């Protein structure tokens, strides 16, 4: 298992679109075969005429519940790579009640209405138009409902924690409860809904299926590794990350293409050439910036970056983040990235790296040049020193010779990067 598209942040890429579309086709197929292209059949459950909704949903839950348990035990599924649905008590209780009302009044839920639309049901189309309006209404009323939407939040809360039961026992209990609900709903359908009781042969088959289900549930208690809790631990990404704000598209590809970093020498060349639309953003404290900084750089200390990003940074053009080392700049990169900036990169090894690679005489580097390259490199080095250190408060003597101790950077630079 190399990871799910969610964990690889590839959901909103071509492969994600294809697979999600394919899974949607299967989803729609089974919904339609369940008879959910009909609002009369859907709502039948709430008048005990046809309990299909309850049975279909509960069967799907139980199958997925057992499936997840077996797949994780065999190592084919890693719950750390699966979305986490946080608990928001208020939003989910109110949302559940309102969605239930909408289901009966409208005759559809969003997914079944799509299937109803495919079956040419005009009421499904009207329902979908309503659902679009409802979504817009939510966006319009968002400031009003925000406390409910975000309040009473518990990240990654699991049923076994809430009920204080061992997960193995809870699994058996849930499967037993499902069998009970199946039986009772069939009975209600006959008694209140006045539907004929099924064939004895069908009833025997269902009893066998129920026994098989309970046997499988019991089997999960014999499986290695706790079914939940343990495997979920340490999973941070939550539903809002995947649902509300789009996950960063193609992030992994971008990292792989090394577009997120810029090497000191490359930056030096760009600055010396006077590249337009390139802004160096120095995120070190103001004091360090005042002592030494790259020409043209602006200073936005990292603690102010989130708040001042929109006011101080231009909306277009490339941004290079510079700290003393890499880690702080990488964090700043992430912060800007989450704000929607795409053309941002980090100066590899920061100021220290820049000093070592660009402003140290070639003869003093770890691998001094030899042969014909020496002269050209020395010349490039001198050009860089002239460009970057002119006016800098460094006592660098002019001339062809390097200063007495050129390897040591000016006093402001070598401040060690604080541990992130």
């Amino acid at each position, binding site marked *: 298992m190399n990871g799910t598209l969610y964990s690889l942040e590839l959901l909103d890429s071509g492969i994600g679109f294809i697979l999600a579309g394919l899974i949607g086709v299967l*989803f729609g197929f089974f*919904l339609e075969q369940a008879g959910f292209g009909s609002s009369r059949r859907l709502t039948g459950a709430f008048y005990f005429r046809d309990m299909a909704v309850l049975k*279909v949903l509960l*069967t799907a839950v139980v199958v997925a519940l057992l499936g997840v348990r077996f797949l994780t035990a065999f190592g084919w599924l890693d719950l750390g790579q699966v979305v986490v649905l946080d608990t928001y008590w208020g*939003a989910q209780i109110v949302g559940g009640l309102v969605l239930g009302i909408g289901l009966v009044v409208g005759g559809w839920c969003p997914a079944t209405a799509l299937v109803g639309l495919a079956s040419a049901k005009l009421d499904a189309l009207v329902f979908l138009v309503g659902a679009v309006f409802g*979504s817009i209404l939510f966006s319009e009323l968002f400031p009003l409902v925000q406390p409910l939407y975000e309040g009473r939040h518990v990240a990654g809360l699991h049923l076994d924690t809430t009920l204080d039961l061992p997960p193995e026992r809870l699994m058996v209990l849930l499967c037993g409860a499902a069998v009970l609900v199946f039986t009772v709903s069939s009975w209600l359908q006959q008694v209140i809904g006045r539907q004929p009781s099924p064939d004895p042969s069908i009833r025997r088959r269902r009893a066998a299926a129920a026994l098989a289900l309970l046997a499988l549930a019991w089997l999960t208690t014999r499986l290695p590794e706790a079914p939940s809790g343990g495997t979920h631990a340490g999973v941070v990404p939550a539903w809002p990350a995947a649902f509300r704000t789009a996950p960063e598209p193609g992030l992994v590809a971008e990292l792989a293409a090394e577009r997120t970093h810029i090497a000191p020498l490359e930056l030096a060349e760009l600055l010396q050439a006077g590249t337009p639309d390139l802004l160096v953003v120095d995120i070190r404290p103001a004091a360090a910036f005042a002592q030494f900084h790259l020409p043209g750089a602006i200073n936005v200390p990292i603690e102010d970056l989130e708040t001042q990003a929109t006011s101080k940074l231009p909306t277009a053009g490339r941004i290079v983040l510079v700290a003393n080392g890499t880690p702080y700049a990488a964090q700043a990169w992430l912060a800007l990235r989450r704000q929607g900036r795409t053309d941002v990169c980090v100066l590899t090894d920061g100021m220290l790296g820049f000093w070592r690679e660009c402003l140290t005489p070639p003869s003093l580097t770890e691998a001094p040049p030899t042969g014909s390259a020496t002269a050209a490199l020395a010349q490039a080095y001198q050009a860089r020193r002239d460009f970057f250190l002119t006016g800098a408060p460094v006592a660098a003597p002019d001339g062809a010779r390097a200063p007495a101790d050129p390897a040591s950077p000016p006093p402001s630079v070598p401040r060690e990067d604080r541990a992130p």
Partner: protein
Amino acid sequence: MADSPRPTPPPAEAGSAVPVDPLPPAPLRPAVEPVLPADDPSAPPTPLRPAVAPSLPAGARCEQRSGGLPEGAEAGLPPWSPYAAGFGLGLVLLFALCVLGTGLDASGGLARVAAWADSLLRPERVAASPCFGEWFRAGQPQVLSSYLVFMAAGTCLGGLLSAAASRRVAPMIERGPRISVAGRLSLALFGGILAGFASQLARGCTMGQAVTGTALFFTGSAVFLGCLFAGAYAAALLVRREWR
């Protein structure tokens, strides 16, 4: 299909006109009838799909098409057993969890379509919204280029394939025998608004939040599933007229 036997075609009077008493505009009028559903055994069972041609003007007197036609001929093949269909859905959900790492969802795609449609009409307003505006920030991909939109589109396509294969594509407005077309459609619109709002509030719909989350053992999703059925059974008492 033992679980949902074909209702026998209703005797003579079911083929007659639907009562011309359209539901008043107020959508949630409490039922005046007694509450128990099974209180009227003399009433003939209503057909599963009383079909009404959608071209009829709203509120017009309209005949049910079922007169003389066997129910099956109109509705195509009977649906699968709910357990078989639920089993299939469970497997698709498992597949989605393994491959995508997320569950099945329709409301997320719908919300993006809503945001997109809204942005065509009022771009500034949407861009400034703290909710939909998130999808229109600089650097974000186009609002419709989301896997959720593709999943919703796939759901529609899968439904069409299945319905066509089972001869269940039939233009109609489904409703109970005691409600007018206009009444049914206004309730469908109102229910849609509620459902759209609620699935945004709860971060998912029946499938995306309730079933997916419960299968993953999440407390909030299981509570959501319970509340969904509680709300539905309570509301069913109020709109009996729409369906029975």
